[in-house]
């Protein structure tokens, strides 16, 4: 039954694309995020829907779309360079088969992020992209939110419809992404034109934000909690009554503690007692290993190069019973541990040049969004104010991602590359609009003679 619903939905969405080809782009965005082929038992998983959607999206753009004044931003060039560089490291990889496997999805994420801004020619397109990204992610987040309220969740225990832990269905990734999209949800609630602000939109948006905040609790991913703190700090930037805001946030946080499952509090305690936690100690050892590795291999080991690591470390736990503290040291041997950090993932797999290009792409994004935000901050024309607000939402989302990425290996997460594509699209759109606004024929710009 569910299969038929997904098929009908996709057919309608793609069918609409034949009238408005931009809907093909949205179809691909939806398929890439929700991966409906993984939620069904038959029909969809036998058809390469992702390939069909992307072919239609590119075909529609090539054949029908208006390509006048198409701008290619420097970041798109950098992504092309990164794409080619990753291709070369894949051919030289330490583990050719495993590297090829990761390359098979990484190149698609990069290529789509390069292509996406070319299609974002109008406000409505940019908005609808944001809306589809949010609603697609919401399919997973709403499930997570309700199940967390119902059962309290648990690390690796929250069932998000799919059990194979890939894409956004992975608990650490979804808890980071869920927090990163909160600024975008709030933007769509205030400035959306597809679903203009009314009580229903507000109800849905706030409920969705609440579900997003529940994701780190439900998945017990510590990264998510850190992301929530970053989000709180960023929202402080534009709060008029800052003291009241801090007080409210504090009261809310303290009053939430009794409702948190004890497994959550125990796990969050390991943030400060990281020495007793093998997962946190492993990370530090893997990062040390990565640093030693790139000193010998400055161009990285290609995708999945972490498979060769062998680490040994000791965890220290202190037991306090009857006023006597006993310290227990346990030696742990481990191998093939993942990077657990996007920065070390880039460094270990793509070496110094790869990390450098990746960091430049991220940094330009932060600065460009800041520039746009400032430019439109006090813009006289209310019709254009949304540009500054969206730039801010995308920048905040990116900052949350960059902090979360310190502890999760999500350097090539397709959802984040879509957000970067949206940033570039907004940037080129804003530039095009300013040029159009500034230019006027002389006779039109001068006041008419009396």
């Amino acid at each position: 039954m569910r299969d038929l619903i997904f098929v009908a939905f996709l057919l309608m969405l793609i069918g609409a694309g034949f009238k408005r080809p931009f809907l093909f782009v949205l179809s691909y965005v939806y398929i890439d995020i929700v991966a409906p082929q993984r939620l069904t038992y038959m029909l969809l998983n036998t058809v390469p829907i992702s390939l069909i959607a992307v072919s239609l999206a590119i075909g529609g753009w090539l054949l029908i779309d208006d390509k006048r004044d198409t701008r290619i931003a420097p970041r798109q060039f950098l992504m092309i360079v990164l794409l080619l560089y990753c291709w070369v490291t894949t051919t030289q990889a330490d583990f050719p088969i495993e590297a090829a496997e990761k390359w098979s999805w990484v190149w698609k994420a990069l290529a789509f992020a390069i292509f996406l801004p070319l299609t974002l020619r109008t406000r409505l397109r940019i908005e609808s992209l944001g809306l589809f990204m949010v609603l697609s992610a919401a399919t997973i987040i709403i499930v997570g939110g309700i199940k967390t309220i119902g059962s309290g969740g648990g690390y690796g225990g929250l069932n998000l419809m799919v059990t194979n832990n890939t894409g956004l269905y992975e608990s650490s990734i979804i808890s980071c992404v869920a927090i990163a999209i909160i600024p975008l949800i709030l933007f769509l609630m205030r400035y959306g034109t597809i679903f203009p602000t009314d009580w229903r939109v507000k109800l849905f948006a706030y409920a969705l934000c609440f579900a997003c905040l529940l994701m780190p609790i439900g998945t017990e991913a510590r990264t998510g909690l850190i992301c929530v703190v970053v989000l709180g700090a960023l929202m402080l930037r534009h709060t008029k009554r800052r003291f009241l805001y801090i007080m409210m946030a504090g009261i809310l946080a303290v009053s939430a503690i009794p409702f948190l499952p004890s497994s959550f509090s125990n796990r969050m305690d390991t943030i400060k007692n990281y020495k007793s936690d093998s997962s946190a100690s492993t990370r530090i050892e893997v990062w040390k290993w990565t640093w030693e590795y790139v000193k010998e291999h400055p161009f990285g080991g290609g995708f999945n190069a972490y498979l060769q690591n062998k680490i040994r470390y000791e965890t220290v736990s202190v037991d306090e019973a009857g006023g006597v503290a006993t310290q227990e040291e346990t030696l742990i041997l481990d191998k093939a541990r993942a990077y657990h950090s996007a920065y070390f993932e880039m460094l270990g797999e793509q070496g110094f040049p790869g990390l450098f290009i990746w960091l430049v792409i991220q940094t330009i994004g932060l600065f460009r969004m800041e520039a746009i935000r400032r430019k439109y901050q006090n813009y006289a024309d209310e019709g254009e104010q949304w540009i500054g607000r969206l730039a801010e939402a995308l920048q905040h989302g990116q900052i949350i991602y960059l902090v979360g990425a310190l502890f999760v290996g999500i350097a090539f997460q397709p959802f984040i590359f879509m957000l970067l594509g949206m940033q570039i699209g907004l940037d080129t759109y804003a530039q095009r609009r300013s040029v159009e606004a500034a230019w006027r024929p002389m006779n039109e710009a001068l006041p008419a003679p009396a």
Partner: protein
Amino acid sequence: MIDNFSIGLTHGLMLLAALLLLLRPELDREEPPKPLPKPKAWRDKGGGNA
């Protein structure tokens, strides 16, 4: 049950959004922006009614 509720809600909204997008021509083409406002100082000096 929860899964179906979430899928139904978000997919319903996406379908509605797609339908609304079909009805809006500005998805593909949009009006050029209004010319930039005149500098404030100029207006304050009473430089015309425009």
